[in-house]
């Protein structure tokens, strides 16, 4: 087995420290923008960090040890997927590990007897059903264009990935909306004042376990924005700008639309986002022949 070079490990460690800071700031920005769109002043930019620190200092009440284990797994696997992205490693492995991270959250929801938690967990499964095909097909479309699943091959391309996979980009933005629980896709739990069956999948989490679930959300956001940045990796600032603009568009969509049903979400995902990526792959296949 090849040993991992020291500078790569350093890069991963740096990313694991910086990603929550980015995720927290983006969440703070999201809350301010949302408040302004509703005609309010909104919380300070650092509010998500205050919330997180407070939650770490609260008494954790959990029903059983299994639930705690699954929350640990949720956080660890999301961090692993970020590590894979920073190491410019296999995108297929990354999407599957990200999927397993969500499965951990679902299992944490099912580990307790609360009906609210059950509802949330079942809806999170529907989010998985809508989101995972998009991510997997994105990885396959990526392979069709670059000839490899490695994230590093996007950096070697002469023309940016966006030129070859514009529809896959749109599909990935839809997946980002589902994973970050933006309306109309916030079926499993929501950050807004209007609440879905108490707090959905996070109902039974409290104290540091709720904080860990929140932290995992921030890591997940960074990973998905990183995947979007891969569409234009050279120069990197264009890719980062692309990711930020996509996220801003989702915040606007979040405030402009109501929450819709999970049936609608699954239908939209499979009929629009998945078929867009498949169409993109067919087009790419015909053009490259």
């Amino acid at each position: 087995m090849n040993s991992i070079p020291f500078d790569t490990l350093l890069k991963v460690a740096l990313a694991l420290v910086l990603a929550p800071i980015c995720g927290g700031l983006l969440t703070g920005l999201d809350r301010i923008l949302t408040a302004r769109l509703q005609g309010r002043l909104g919380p300070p930019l650092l509010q998500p960090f205050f919330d997180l620190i407070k939650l770490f200092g609260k008494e954790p009440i959990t029903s059983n040890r299994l639930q705690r284990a699954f929350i640990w797994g949720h956080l660890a696997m999301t961090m692993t997927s970020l590590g894979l992205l920073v190491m410019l490693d296999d995108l297929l492995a990354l999407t599957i590990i990200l999927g397993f991270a969500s499965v951990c959250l679902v299992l944490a929801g099912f580990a307790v007897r609360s009906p609210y938690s059950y509802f949330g967990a079942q809806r999170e499964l529907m989010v998985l059903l809508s989101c995972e095909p998009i991510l997997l097909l994105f990885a396959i479309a990526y392979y069709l264009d670059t000839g490899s699943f490695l994230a590093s091959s996007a950096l070697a391309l002469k023309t940016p990935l966006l030129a070859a996979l514009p529809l896959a980009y749109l599909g990935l933005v839809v997946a980002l909306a589902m994973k970050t629980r933006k309306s109309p896709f916030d079926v499993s739990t929501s950050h807004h004042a209007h609440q879905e069956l108490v707090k959905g999948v996070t109902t039974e989490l409290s104290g540091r376990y709720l904080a860990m679930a929140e932290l995992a959300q921030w890591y997940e956001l960074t990973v998905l924005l990183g995947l979007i940045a891969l569409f234009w990796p050279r120069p990197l600032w264009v890719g980062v700008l692309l990711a930020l603009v996509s996220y801003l568009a989702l915040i606007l969509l979040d405030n402009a639309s109501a929450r819709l049903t999970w049936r609608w979400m699954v239908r939209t995902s499979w009929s629009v986002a998945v078929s867009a990526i498949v169409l993109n792959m067919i087009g790419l296949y015909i053009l490259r022949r």
Partner: protein
Amino acid sequence: MGLLSLARVRSPWLLHFDCGSCNGCDIEILACLTPVYDVERFGIVNMGNPKHADLLVVTGPANRRSARVLENLYEQMPRPKIVVAVGACACSGGVFHACPNVLGGVDKVVPVDIYVPGCAARPEAIIDGIVLGLGRLNGNGKRDGAAAPGQS
């Protein structure tokens, strides 16, 4: 002030429970969340889930039916937690104090930290009461006698 103490004061999540109020105080609490008062400026968010909440904001008098629910909600909240009684009914039973089904103020059921008077309590008074209560979150449940807004 340590980082955790600062974070506690800057991020109070509240759970609102209506014990049997006439909805006058409830509307005033919701008014605090609207653009006019916008309590999210101070990080205050309405949670609807006892396991996520730091503050229990109770309106209406405690009665024989709602006492059990109120007690249950209080027990489910992780420490540190504080209770704010909003309105004359929650403070003492108000106009309902002599009803046969009414026990009196909510302090008959759960320990109350802050009493916000008024019928209905004004949003300014509610925000004042909650801000007054935040200082107690760092006392880790130590209670040195209840205070009404404007008294300390």
